[in-house]
């Protein structure tokens, strides 16, 4: 197929995605700042001890990496199951009334071989009509108020472990949901897909 022959394309390319794994993270705010790029909040993971693990709302396992359907394989590979090691420097910068930019780093450790898988990703947070009011300080709203924002990321993964080399060869997409409680980002859950 000559790609550009004959002028503009009149058909869309296939846009398949393959589900890989999901993960849940409890968040802790490390600080807020207003810099040249706008308003920003820096987040990191926190342990579940004494935290906001509320299975009554949505089944949620802090730091778990799992397959939603508990499948043991993904395409020809073992499914990725394990724990989230670290989440750092996830920042939210307001760049539009209803959208914020996200940049983050995450480390995953697999349960089977203890392989460490790293990703540095960018993405966006869809704030909807509430906008930055999601993050209004606690004093200005009911502390128990809980809002949610869709999170979208475009990660690629890196690992030195040969068993998971296949993952490092894929461009991935993450569809997530961030929960903001009392004006503070408290957790998110993400489904990771590979583009195919």
């Amino acid at each position, binding site marked *: *197929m*000559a*790609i*550009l022959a004959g002028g*503009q*394309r*009149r*058909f*869309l*390319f*296939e*846009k398949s*995605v393959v*589900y890989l794994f*999901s993960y*849940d993270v409890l968040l802790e705010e490390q600080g807020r700042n207003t810099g040249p790029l706008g308003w920003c909040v820096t987040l990191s993971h926190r342990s579940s001890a004494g935290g906001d*693990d509320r*299975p009554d709302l*949505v*089944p*949620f*396992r802090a730091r*778990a990496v*799992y397959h*939603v*359907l508990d499948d043991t394989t993904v395409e020809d590979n073992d499914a990725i199951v394990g724990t989230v090691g670290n989440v750092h420097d996830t920042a939210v*910068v307001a*760049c*539009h009334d209803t*959208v*914020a*930019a*996200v940049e983050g780093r995450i480390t995953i450790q697999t349960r089977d071989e203890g392989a460490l898988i790293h990703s540095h990703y*960018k*993405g*966006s947070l*869809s704030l909807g009509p509430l906008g930055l009011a999601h993050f209004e300080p606690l004093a200005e709203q009911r502390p128990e108020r809980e809002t949610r924002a*869709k999170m*979208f*990321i*475009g*990660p*690629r993964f890196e690992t030195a472990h040969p068993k998971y*080399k296949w993952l*490092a*060869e*894929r*461009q991935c*997409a993450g*569809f*997530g*949901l961030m929960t903001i409680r009392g004006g503070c980002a408290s957790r998110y*859950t*993400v*489904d990771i*897909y590979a*583009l*195919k």
Partner: protein
Amino acid sequence: MSSHRRHFLDKSLYYLFSLDGNLEYGREDIGFVSGGVRINAHSVPRDSRAYSVVGETRVFGEKLVAGTMVWGGDWAFAREDDIELLDVKALIRTDDNAVVEVEYGGVLAAGPRSFRQVISEKPKFGSEQNPLDATFYVAPRFNSGDPRYAWLNGRQCLGFGRVKFIESLAKQATVDFWMMD
């Protein structure tokens, strides 16, 4: 221990526009660097176009990008494991005279032994008669100071594209951009 989530989150994608790039403007073979080969490819100014494949001009009531790519380049890194990492920046001047910046990274898999073929140039892949079409996947974001296109700012998108190789050189690329929502 509580159970994990048993349902998938919504993963809607909305088509935005497509971008065709003519990559024959210039190529800089930086050569071997740690872990692979760096190759810079630049698009021909004003010979590359953004358009809607399906002829739409708006999505969610917002204006879609259509116009000419005035500048663009890919600072690609071909890894020894036959994976090429893309690092693309481009500027589109829309038909209504706004400027939209496109920036993305992504992955191109040109096939088994493609890295060896790139460095040895034997055999070269793709010919004028039978070009090699390789698939690539990207995660773009857009930026514009023009209020008509500000709705795109910061939104995470995905791209599904093809690139045409002739004599082991990337000649033309075309990609569909989808917004995650």
